[in-house]
Every structure is written in structure tokens, then in C-alpha cells.
């Protein structure tokens, strides 16, 4: 169950894919970190992840957590974005048999789940096939 405060804390990442990048070694962190785990630098600058990428791997969820019951079955993939960062999210707007490793996808803003009939609506990124 997502509380409003937890959801709110994640807004920069869920809505805008905000990350940070180590100024010394260039590693990108998503979500952002205070300290680079490669070179221990504290000099990290704000950056934004690419909104296009390709499917590295995926699976079909048929027995979902309770917030996602109405959406099942659905595909969840690990996507390598064009900047090399790998993130996980639902792959939607395509039939399962059309999802292929290496398929080009782009980020789309979607409702992830709602907190019951009267709770908050939680939005964020999913992936859809790139049509152009």
C-alpha cells in the first residue's frame, strides 16, 4: 500500500525519470544517491534518463500483487534506456506475442495503480512500443 508521503517522495523519479550522475566517474544512479558507489565521490549532478530504449528481458505476471489484479495478465520488462541505464516497468499497448528481446520502446506516463476506491491515484512510467 502506497502512502501519500511515500508516493510524493518518488514523484521526481516516477514522473520525470530524474537521476543523478557522478561528476568524477560518470556513473548514473536511479534513484539518485548521495555518494557514488564506484569512486565514493560526493559530487553528483542532477540528470534525466533517456525516454527511449530497448527491452532486455521480460516476463508475464499472471498472479499479481493486489493493486494490479485488474491489470493482470501484464508484461514487466527490464529496459535498457538509450543512456545505458536499465530500469524495470510494465510493457503495455502490445500483445504479449509481439514483445521481443531488443524491441524498441519509449516511456509513457500511465496510472500505475490506485489505493482502493477512495485512496490516491499513483502515476508513473510504463513502456510502449516505439511506433516512430
Amino acid at each position: 500500500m502506497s502512502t501519500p508521503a511515500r508516493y510524493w517522495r518518488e514523484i521526481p523519479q516516477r514522473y520525470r525519470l530524474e537521476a543523478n550522475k557522478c561528476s568524477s566517474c560518470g556513473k548514473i544512479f536511479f534513484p539518485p544517491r548521495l555518494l557514488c558507489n564506484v569512486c565514493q565521490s560526493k559530487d553528483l549532478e542532477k540528470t534525466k534518463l533517456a525516454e527511449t530504449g530497448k527491452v532486455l528481458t521480460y516476463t508475464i505476471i499472471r498472479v499479481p500483487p493486489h493493486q494490479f489484479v485488474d491489470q493482470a495478465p501484464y508484461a514487466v520488462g527490464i529496459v535498457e534506456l538509450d543512456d545505458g541505464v536499465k530500469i524495470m516497468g510494465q510493457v503495455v499497448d502490445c500483445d504479449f506475442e509481439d514483445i521481443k528481446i531488443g524491441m524498441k520502446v519509449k516511456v509513457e506516463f500511465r496510472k500505475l495503480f490506485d489505493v482502493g476506491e477512495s485512496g490516491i491515484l499513483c502515476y508513473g512510467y510504463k513502456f510502449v512500443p516505439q511506433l516512430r
Partner: protein
Amino acid sequence: MEGIVGYGAYIPRNRIKVEEIAKVWGADAPSYKKGLMLEEKSVPSLDQDTITMSVEASKNALKRALIDPKDIGAVYIGSESHPYAVKPSGTVLAEAIGATPDVHTADLEFACKAGTEGMFIALNLVASGVIKYGLGVGADTSQGAPGDALEYSAAAGAAAFIFGKENLVAKAHETYSYMTDTPDFWRREYQYYPQHGGRFTGDPAYFKHIKGAARGIMDKAGMKPEDFQYVIFHQPNGKFPFRVGKMLGFKKEQIEPGWLVNKLGNTYSGSSPLGLTSTLDISQPGDMILLVSYGSGAGSDGFVFEVTERINEVRESAPKTRDLLSHNINYLEYGEYAKFRHKIRKAD
């Protein structure tokens, strides 16, 4: 001079055909198709609503505007299907495009006219010099009661326009609004589906207000129907825009580029704004475009735009509206549609 700096559209991939709805209610599909001049309509997925479509349409508008979202001083979403009863849609949009926190945001409601209301306010705030850029969005996931005539047309889509004073795609020469209190369509608090006045939604409502706004803005601008390459009227069904166009002296060819309703349905607050996006997609520098919305209750907003050279630079920067309408389509059966539109009552 002020005008449109960037525009963008968004249409969900799901469709349901008139035949599929008619089959469930024992209605005569051919007569609905002929009467409404409509073949199918768009349907949002479970994870799409007015907010998500507004974000995607606005991101497409930003791709054409090429501005820093931080310079957007006002964000308005017009819709009759804001997902929350209390909590703004516009804050999510402003946050998602990176316009916060120096931004004024409001959600607008005026049946199908709410989208052009947001555009009207954003454009005129830019004109007054209060803000550098303003974003106006029309978006809806409209609902028709099961079996009602509206169920065949109530659809989903969004169009977004960024207004500014530099690098214009289209100059805004004139705006005008025509308004009376006319109860032709309404939804009371806590009611799930809207109600309408049947034929009363025609002459004293749609036709009177569109004619009033179109004639008013043409008088104000000193223009005649033949001065426009294109005209977009609100599209509650396929017939009404052509009928009102004929009454006003416009030709079919002026209406067709922005006439999407036969394959899209009535996207309410997104309807005439989406017609404007598809018209801009095919327009040429120098073309004059008249946009007249209609919202029950009732009123119409009119805009006169002149397309600039920049249209040729930005046209391909984001998906074109008719491409969104025809690509990656997923036809639904009524059961899936009923689930997607939350028409099925589940156990707690």
C-alpha cells in the same frame, strides 16, 4: 504577437465499434452509424485517464515548442472527467513536464468546452504579458450511460497547446466567446453518468452557440467563411459539424481535415482541440484557421489562427494526429470495454 508555439495530441489505442455496442443493447447498428455518422470510438485502458493523456499530449506539444518547461507560467486542463473530485489534475501535469513550482495551475470544467477555455485563458495571459508561456489542454475520458445514444460516441483523447509570443507555429488573431444559460446536458454531483435533453441539445444548444460564436468572431475579425482554408467545429457526432458549417457558409473541404469523429468518437473537451491539431498537421504557412468549440450549459469559444512558416519545421517533431488515430489499434469486445470503463460492479 501571441499564438501557438507548440501543439500535441494523444489518442489511446483501444477502439470499440458501433456494431459491438449495438449488439449488446439490441439496437440497430446501421441506423446509429448513419444517424451519428460514426463507425467506432476510442476507449482508454485501465491505466489511462485525463491526467495521463494530458501529460502525453503536452510532452508532444513540448517537442514542437522546444522551450524550457520552467518558462511555462500557467497550466490549465479542461475536462469533465478529472480523475479526482477534489485534487487538481493540473498539478500532476505541471510536475510531470517539469513546470513546477513557478506556475499557476487550474482545472476547468464546462462540458465539452473546457479544453478551449484553458486555451483561451492561457493565450490571453500570454497576450497580457503576465506569463511568458501558457499551456492549455483539453482532455476527456467521457462516459455515456450504458445503452444511451451517448455510449456510441463518448470517447477519450487529449490535445495540448503551448502559447507564447515568439517562434509561433500559428498567430492568434482573434478570440471571442458566446455564452447563455442553456441546460441541454448535465451531470449532478455523485452521479456516474450525464443526462441530456435529447433533441434539445441541437438547435437551441449546439447550433445556436456555434453559429453565435462563429458569426461573432468573423464580425470582430472582419472575415468571411471563404477567407479561411480550414474550420473546426466541436464534433459530438459526425453530422453536426457539417450541418453547422453549411448553415454558416463553409464548404465540406474546409471541415474535413479536422473532422476526426467518425473513427475517434466525441472526445468532449479534446474534440475540437484535436481537430485543430490534425488541421495544423496538414496546413501550410499563411493558412487561416477558424476554431469554434461547444460546451453544453452552454457556450462556444472562437479562435482565428494564421499558420506561420515554422509549421514546416515542427510538423514532424511529434506524432501527427491522424497517425495516432490509425496506428496500433486494438478493437475491444463489449466485456473488455465495460471493464476498462469501470462499468462492472465488483465485490469489495
